[in-house]
């Protein structure tokens, strides 16, 4: 321990006394899967991160990076843990260049602050925020009058998540159908490698073939290859019109037929979600008072020119009614935004209500979504566990939440068995099943990252090459990397 006191002094000399926390309370709140760090460090910029990591590398200290902590329950428990490195002080927007549709920010900038900064003065913003004041500092900015754009991703926890955390987990939402994934939006990165070395790649242009596309490698790597400190993204102008259509059905076959029909048209909706009644009810939507959810709700988002939104909404509504939709409702502009924010906050909301909540993401070939969905429903009703099921139809992704009030041995066993069956099903459908949240006590019984794929051999080579002493988030990632 005496030795670690010296380490703390060195950390203090890098980031300052008030930015190194070693009190038991601080260590407990920053524990990862109940494993407490020896210190929590709050560097202010890339240089400080570099020095902290360099020290950790020299002294063989294991690091887990952390943003706002919304997704710390992902992954395997770390094999060891000494330092939690928090990015919360790294909240500068380095270059807001809306006329070129790019933004460069530090990792600790909150997603909501980016959207608020990019919104127009008329309060048009990609999140229905109470206030548009951003908590982030702004360093260099281009002309403020060019505005009215957004970072086109809609991840969960969008009100609290930091951009670094979103990218490190390649965290996505329903509107990926239209806009693609965070990994498609990132143009450049400056990172601190596990040796402490600062390395950059990419830049401010959409086209860039100058060196390896390191941004893609880092996106979704869960802090196992280094700490992303600064990132550049491409932006889009805010859509002229935003609206949402809700359709409810009593049978899955009717609900899925609508989704399938939409997919077969040339229409370009932003999202097509098929959710069970429990999912919709849990969101507690107040903007559609007359809407009766029924067993299934199909939710379609439109973000386009006004005339295109009008056409899509009327054609899809007709499809729904022809298929016997029980109820329908339309949400425009602000209520559209509130709805999708509720979708984004669903996991966090459920986590507060169900302490044993288990969340999983199933991926599979797009065309097999109905089969997978049906299979999940059957397995879950057999297992007698309450659940929320939400398919991003057209993207080949399904989100599953097991609503477990309190985890005990028996429910954990039942959940593990059900998840194993669904994992096999996803694998048969060409995909996998990743558990994105589970109580630390249950993780030993769960395959957090599903089946290992054959390309794991290369992943291991990369990890060993880039993180030679295994200090970056050791053990948390796929295959125990």
């Amino acid at each position: 321990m005496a030795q670690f006191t010296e380490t703390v002094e060195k950390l203090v000399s890098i980031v300052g006394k008030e930015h190194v926390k070693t009190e038991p309370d601080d260590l407990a709140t920053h524990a990862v899967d109940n494993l407490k760090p020896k210190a929590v460090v709050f560097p202010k910029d890339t240089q400080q991160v570099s020095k902290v990591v360099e020290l950790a590398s020299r002294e063989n200290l294991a690091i887990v990076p952390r943003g706002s902590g919304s997704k710390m329950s992902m992954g395997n428990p770390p094999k060891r843990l000494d330092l939690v490195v928090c990015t919360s002080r790294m909240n500068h927007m380095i270059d807001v260049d809306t006329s070129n549709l790019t933004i460069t920010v530090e990792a600790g900038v909150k997603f909501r602050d980016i959207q608020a900064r990019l919104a127009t003065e008329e309060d048009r913003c990609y999140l229905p925020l109470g206030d548009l004041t951003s908590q982030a500092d702004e360093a260099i900015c281009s002309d403020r009058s060019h505005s009215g754009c957004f970072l086109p991703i809609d991840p969960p926890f969008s009100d609290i998540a930091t951009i670094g955390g979103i990218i490190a987990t390649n965290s996505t939402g329903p509107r990926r159908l239209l806009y693609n994934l965070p990994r498609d939006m990132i143009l450049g990165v400056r990172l601190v490698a596990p040796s402490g070395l600062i390395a950059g790649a990419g830049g401010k242009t959409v086209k860039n073939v100058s060196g390896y596309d390191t941004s893609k490698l880092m996106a979704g790597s869960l802090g196992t290859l280094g700490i992303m400190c600064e990132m550049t993204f491409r932006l889009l102008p805010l859509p002229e019109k935003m609206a949402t259509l809700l359709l409810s059905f009593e049978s899955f076959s009717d609900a899925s037929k609508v989704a399938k029909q939409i997919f077969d048209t040339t229409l370009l909706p932003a999202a097509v979600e098929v959710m069970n009644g429990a999912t919709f009810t849990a969101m507690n939507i107040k903007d559609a008072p007359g809407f009766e959810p029924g067993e299934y709700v199909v939710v379609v988002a439109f973000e386009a020119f006004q005339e295109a939104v009008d056409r899509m909404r009327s054609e899809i509504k007709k499809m729904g009614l022809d298929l016997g939709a029980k109820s329908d409702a339309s949400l425009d502009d602000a209520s559209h935004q509130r709805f999708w924010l509720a979708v984004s906050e669903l996991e966090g909301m459920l986590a507060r209500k169900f302490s044993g909540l288990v969340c999983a993401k199933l991926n599979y070939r797009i065309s097999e979504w109905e089969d997978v969905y049906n299979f999940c429903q059957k397995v879950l009703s057999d297992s007698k566990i309450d659940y929320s099921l939400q398919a991003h139809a057209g993207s080949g992704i399904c989100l599953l939440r097991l609503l477990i009030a309190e985890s005990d041995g028996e429910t954990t066993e039942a959940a593990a068995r059900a998840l194993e069956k669904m994992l096999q099903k996803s694998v048969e459908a060409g995909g996998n099943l990743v558990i994105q949240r589970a109580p630390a006590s249950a993780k030993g019984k769960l395959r957090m990252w599903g089946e290992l794929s054959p390309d794991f051999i290369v992943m291991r080579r990369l990890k060993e090459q880039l993180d030679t002493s295994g200090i970056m988030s050791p053990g948390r990632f796929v295959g125990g990397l």
Partner: protein
Amino acid sequence: MDNKELAERLREIAGKDYVLTSDMDRMLYSYDASLEKAIPDVVVLPNSTEEVSKIMSLAYREKIPILGRGSGTNLTGGSIPVKGGIVVHFSRMNRILEIDIPNRTATVEPGVITLDLQTEVLKKGFIYQPDPASQKVSTIGGNIAENSGGPHCLKYGVTSNHILGLEVVLNDGTVIWTGGKSRDNPGYDLAGLFVGSEGTLGLVTKAILKLERAPETIKTMLAIYETIEDGANTVSAIIAEGIVPATLEMMDNPVMRAVEETIKVGYPLDAAAVLIIELDGMPEGMDEKAQKIMEICKQNNVREVKLAKDDAERDLLWAGRKGAFGAVGQVRPSYLCCDGTVPRTKLPEVLNKVMDISKKYDVPIGNVFHAGDGNLHPLIMFDERNKDELKRVLKASTDILKACVDVGGTISGEHGVGLEKLKETSFIFCENDIEFERHIKKAFDPDDFINPGKMIPEPVCEQ
């Protein structure tokens, strides 16, 4: 192992007709669309992943340099065997294995010609978005290696945004699949890393590509300007209006002249620039947006702007742009195409600098560029036989790339670093950045025999 034995072993793998060793044959694989040249020891044309795997294993055991080659349209020397060894030519592996509409994917071999695939999927109402100018001859494998762009990148992104899975032969001959028809497979995004790696990490033997619905409507406009600035300002103003066109392509006067001398599409020779603007998507609201765009053109002093009424008119508007490189090639014996890319709003500034550089080195430069995404293509025209001129051309090229980097851009948007821009990587990268790249390379190819000498400069002082 001497070359004779190497050829013999390759014949055992690929068959005797598919190994080329004559001086003439090898010379044909010694160049690409860049100015670089080097002769391989042997060329092999495999027909399957298994054969590629065996060839790779052989190269791995014997530590013989190996590199993959498609149609050889690389503009930076990426397909030049600078260290000799084996060239693996993928022309026989040119099968479209599957077009899977329900899953919105196409599975292809690397030798498939980009346009051939696009033509096939369009018959089913779908498109594969990346459309590099060389799509008539370039291969999907080459597009993957270079992360090719094209005119549609502003709206639809580059090749890496459309690759879902890859079958790759690793350094020791192991065959892996990374990614697949399903999205979000757990683990590192290896497909994302392979795309744009300039063939330095392994050989791609199959690819799963993402397909999208063909748009219901396309509207194409052509605007003619008295100054390049007016054209470039129009581009920024359109985007500031909240409209993201599928394409924003520009050509300057020297290129328009070359086009008129050869293919004649009716460009006014006294104008400074033409801008092609294309919208795509659902027809609703598109007429209004086209009107709005034409108003924006007028606000920016356009001399004339016209909207194509039908496909024939659209093809005519595009003919000049698509034929531009060829036209320049006919006017002058050689040209060097720079690929610097800048943030879009910096275009007028950089174009002015390009003109200054043209004067400074006394070399004519024409500009044809993807204005929407800031990707310049200054064509430095010259005669390769004039050695003094060639020297000035290379200096001008370096200066142009420096000018791009100075305004926050980069040295290559879609052609890659290859051999030609190894030196210029120092404009954008410091030694640390390159060191990180070397680590990535080492994870895949610690012996440095897969397309060696490309993309990553050697350390300044080697121990």
